[in-house]
């Protein structure tokens, strides 16, 4: 602080601090606090706000336990509240998307960092960037076209003789009702996995890989013991980004999902926008936020990295 004052004087330093304070307080901390506070208050008509009915309770949170129904998890029949089931589905399929993205992005990141000709790297990166600049809404829409029942994918698969009848990707899918959502989320977010891992592998000294190979290590062990440990911060960062984006996506599940595949953010949006019950919406997004924080901490522990490694 002293240093700032000496360099830029009182006026400019005060301006800097005010800008930062506006950002951190007014745009970040206070809104989250407001959400936290509102989530404990009941949804009331305007005249009752501040009245005797307006007291703090966990009522909004306990709504997630309403409406139990019979369902099955991995074939085991269970009875659980409908929102809990949807919540678990969202977390599970978002984790699956994260895993697919990792599997697809890691070899490509390694290729770009260590195998491709360094001179052509800017061009190759640009080729990958171009699809990412197209808005997410349009990318989801592109898959909506591809996955429709009479769409190109089913025609192609039928033409090649893989399937006899078209697959209803958006309703039933092959495995679960979530097939379409998982496919499209993976497509939309795979590049968020690629770039952090690419950056991490670039900083690995190629001599280490050569040394491992000279000492007789097979390729998979070189990756397991040398490349992957080195790219941990990148992997953690990519996983956090992809998980957050997929679990928090409202666009993709609404565009390609169906009534049989519901995503947790859609529930929040319904409370917020259709039911105008902002308080329950706030409670649900608090729950969602807690899961995200938990996931970040889990990744930091799992990969033994710091927050500054993840958010770069």
């Amino acid at each position, binding site marked *: *602080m002293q*240093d*700032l004052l000496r*360099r830029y*004087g009182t*006026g*400019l330093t005060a*301006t800097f601090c005010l*800008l*930062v304070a506006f*950002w*951190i307080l007014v*745009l970040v901390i206070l*809104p*989250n606090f*407001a*959400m936290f506070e509102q989530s404990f208050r009941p949804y009331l008509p305007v005249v009752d*706000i501040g009245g005797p009915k307006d007291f703090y309770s966990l009522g909004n949170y306990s709504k997630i336990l309403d409406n139990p129904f019979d369902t099955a998890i991995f074939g085991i029949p269970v009875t659980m509240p409908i929102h809990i089931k949807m919540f678990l589905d969202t977390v599970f399929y978002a984790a699956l998307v994260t895993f697919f993205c990792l599997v*697809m992005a890691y*070899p490509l990141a390694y*290729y770009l960092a260590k*195998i491709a000709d360094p001179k052509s790297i*800017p061009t190759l990166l*640009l*080729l*990958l*960037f*171009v*699809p990412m*600049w*197209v*808005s*997410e*809404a*349009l*990318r989801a*829409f*592109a898959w909506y076209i*591809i996955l429709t029942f009479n769409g*190109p994918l089913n025609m192609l698969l039928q033409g090649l003789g893989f399937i006899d009848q078209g697959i209803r990707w958006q309703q039933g899918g092959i495995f679960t009702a979530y097939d379409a959502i998982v496919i499209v989320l993976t*497509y939309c977010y795979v*590049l968020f996995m690629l770039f952090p891992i690419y950056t991490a592998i670039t900083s690995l000294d190629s001599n280490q890989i050569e040394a491992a190979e000279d000492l007789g290590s097979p390729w998979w062990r070189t990756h397991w013991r040398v490349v992957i440990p080195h790219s941990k911060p990148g992997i953690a960062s990519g996983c*956090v980004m992809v998980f957050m984006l997929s*679990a*928090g996506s*409202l666009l993709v599940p609404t565009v390609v999902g169906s009534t049989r595949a519901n995503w947790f*953010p859609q529930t929040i*949006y319904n409370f*917020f*926008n259709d039911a105008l019950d*902002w308080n329950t*919406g*706030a409670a649900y*997004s608090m729950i*969602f936020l807690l899961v*995200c924080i938990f996931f970040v901490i889990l990744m930091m522990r799992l990969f033994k990295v710091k*927050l*500054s490694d993840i*958010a*770069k």
Partner: protein
Amino acid sequence: MSRNRALLGHFYFALFVLYLLVPLMVMAGAAFNDSRLPTVAPWKGFTWAWFGELFADQTMWGAFLNSIIVALAVVVLAVPIGTAAAIVLNSISGKYRATLYGFMVAPVLAPGLVIGISTVLFWNQMGHVLHAEDFFLFGRGLHLSTLGQVSYIAAYVMLLVLARLQSFDPGLEEAALDLGANHGQVLRRILLPHLYPAIAASAAIAFFQSIENFNVTLFTKANETTLTVYVFSQVRSGITPKINALAFLLILLTLVLALVYEMNRRRLARIEAERQAEARRAEEAML
């Protein structure tokens, strides 16, 4: 062995690019199909009609204009905030720095819907506290979308500027101060010129991040929409290939921008290579 691996790598890269591009090509292709539904198969003949319908759509133009206005507002707010944050962060160290850094990057990791909801609730509550519920600032609308977007886009600006600050020599500022420059001059003539590349890049990123934004905008908007939300509502409520025409134009724009960028990069690289070659020749001549 390593030749094979390189081949495998090239092959995988090509496959990956194809995987990224084919869906976009399918979508763009459907813009020219003379069919009521957006699809490429069955192909019912070539038409420009969907472009005409797109240009006649007033809602689309309104949404387009809104997107640009919001994006410009985000740039105007997020760039100074992010730059100031980077300068402040750079001047402190230790425990406070880590805490402040945590608060600054948290919005990047926070899901968009959480940012959107919390922004709406906060401003709404401000309206209650000040007994000014009907004042436009406290209700939902694109101004809240702007503020919500700034809360995380400022963090991108901060990260880029902070990275650039690492290569700044504070001695230059000392020298300027010793030579009698005032504080304003130090900022304007010494620090900012060094930061301009990062500031320009972050302004571009802020602009496009804002155009792209969906989650925050959806929760904070009132009746006015932005382009991304417009596309979403069209997809939701029975769609025509009009949106494909829009997608085609946006993809074309992206490609043109990418091409200009690539040609510019190659030109600069060539100039740099020539300069180095000349330097080498000069060195050899000296010997």
